[in-house]
């Protein structure tokens, strides 16, 4: 029984952390898979979204859920503007020029947020119902972790439906598998990318808001967590929604277990795990063959 409680609480904690990783990273994975665009500013959209959500709750008294919706929409809109103005000019450019552009954008985002709202961490106030603990029968656990898991599952299910059951989902899958083929079938890749980019950034915003309780929210956010997002994308396989999902959960749970039982190892285990996994499967757990 004690053992069961232990395992259950470990799974809950790890899965909840994994869900945050999933929500933020999934957009990055799909846009990178679709266009091969190295968007290092993805975490920046998570930060912008998180800020929008916190500010909306603080100044306009918006509830948590309406604020999340607001953050999604605002960030998606901002990202479309940036995508049309900046990203679209570099679709066929060298990936290193893309790195330069997106890192530059990250610097601009960090500096703007710092100048406008200060360098300090932005605390998020969760509704009282989401704080404290919840009794799940076998174990009492942090309510918000359970909420995160539910939210993550909901988003994953919605994404699955979009990808499997809609025209646009089918187009994205086709384009990720073989862009040239998809183009020759008359799929408008640029338009597809704009839509995916907006949705992915919006999701990142949700992740920024939902994860703020764990990850905090400050101007350095886009750089602080970039490595984690990239690890999830690489381990999951580019452009694979299910891949990102399982990779995020795997890393979330593994990180949790290792931290609990081997805290002395620091974060070294996650890096070692990523190295071994990528050597074993260079295209990630769910990635296709090398292209």
């Amino acid at each position, binding site marked *: 029984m004690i053992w069961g409680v232990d395992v259950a609480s470990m799974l809950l904690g790890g899965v909840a952390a994994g869900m945050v990783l999933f929500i933020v990273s999934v957009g990055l994975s799909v846009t990178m898979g679709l266009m091969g665009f190295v968007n290092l500013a993805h975490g920046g959209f998570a930060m912008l979204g998180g800020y929008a959500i916190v500010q909306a709750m603080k100044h306009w008294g918006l509830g948590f859920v309406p604020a999340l919706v607001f953050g999604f929409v605002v960030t998606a809109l901002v990202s479309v503007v940036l995508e049309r103005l900046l990203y679209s000019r570099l679709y066929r450019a060298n990936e290193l*020029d893309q790195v330069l552009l997106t890192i530059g954008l990250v610097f601009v985002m960090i500096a703007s947020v710092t100048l406008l709202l200060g360098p300090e961490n932005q605390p998020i106030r969760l509704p009282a119902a989401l704080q404290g603990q919840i009794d799940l029968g076998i174990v009492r656990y942090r309510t918000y972790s359970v909420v995160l898991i539910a939210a993550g599952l909901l988003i994953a299910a919605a994404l699955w439906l979009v990808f499997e059951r809609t025209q646009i989902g089918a187009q994205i899958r086709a384009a990720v598998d073989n862009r040239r083929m998809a183009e020759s079938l008359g799929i408008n890749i640029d338009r597809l990318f704009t839509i995916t980019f907006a949705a992915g950034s919006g999701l990142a915003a949700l992740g920024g808001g939902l994860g703020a309780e764990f990850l905090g929210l400050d101007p350095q956010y886009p750089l602080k967590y970039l490595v984690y997002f990239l690890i999830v994308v690489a381990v999951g396989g580019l452009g694979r929604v299910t891949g990102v999902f399982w990779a995020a959960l795997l890393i979330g749970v593994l990180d949790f277990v290792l931290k609990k039982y081997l805290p002395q190892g620091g974060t070294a285990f996650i890096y070692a795990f990523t190295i071994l996994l990528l050597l074993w499967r260079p295209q990630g757990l769910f990635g296709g063959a090398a292209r």
Partner: protein
Amino acid sequence: MISPPPSGPLDRPAAHALAGRHWLRAWEPIPWILALGLFVLFPKHLAFGTELLVTILFALSLDLVLGYAGIVTLGHAAFFGAGAYTVGILAKRGLWTEPITGLILAAAVAAAVGLGSGVVLLRTRGLTLLMLTLCTMALLEEAANLAHDYTGGFDGLDSLPIAPLLGRFEFNPLYPTTQYLYVLAVLFVCFLFVRTLVYSPFGQSLTGIRENILRMRAVGAPVRQRLVLCYTLSAAIAGVAGGIWAQANAYVNLGTLALDRAATVLIILVLGGFGRLYGAFIGAVAYMALSHFLSKVYPTGWQLGLGLLLVVIALFANNGILGLVETCSRALRRRGAGAPAPGASAGQ
């Protein structure tokens, strides 16, 4: 001068261009004159100047793998750190304090790390390789943090007893004149080596690997072996950069192994223009001078200016500042001559 044999083919302009492309161009001494000029005219800026020169050396080592062999890595600080800790640990324990031989040891250790990781990692490319190099570096950083007894952990190793250069010139922390000239000399030697290398047939074959790795295999090149060799040489130079940084500062810490350093040097090289030898110089000067002087006048908001510069260069220049210069000068020449410019080889 080349002395063409009686046969005709070597008289063609393309053959002349290839045979003479390693020749010194008129403007090539300029960076070195400027560096000496800085020493004479701005003696108060030598601490910054020393850091700038070390960064150029580090970026140059990255250019070898990234610009010439096309290996995109986010883990190059692993070698910088390996070199820095080699110098630091040997000096702190009183085992080795002579600077020049210390650099050779730093290069050897970094090369060993490069060889070991290169053999394992260079079978992959793209995002996978990027993440593998990054994680390897992060692992080394963790290891350095855990090996507190040797590395000083987060605090690092301070007040390293570095022997005077050539037995005569002390390293003064406040007026780093010796450091500056020392780093400049080492940079010059390393630059000559890299320059020779990229114009050699070996360098040419690296360019071939960058341009089309599959075709390189199809002409019979042992691609993996070349990449590993190039990676090892580059690691050795990065190790020299790290070692000399530790000597000049009499200090090592975990920052030498950090992602920050690896990412910054990548940005610097891309900003300057990779695969062009001088991109390391231009990029380091542009990036560091801008952030240094902008942060003096505007300590809280200088990142905005830097970010905008990166965005503008990415949007309007094809391959960094040197790419922009090349495009402009080609356009000017075309307008001036009214004839198509002769195809210059890429990578020069």
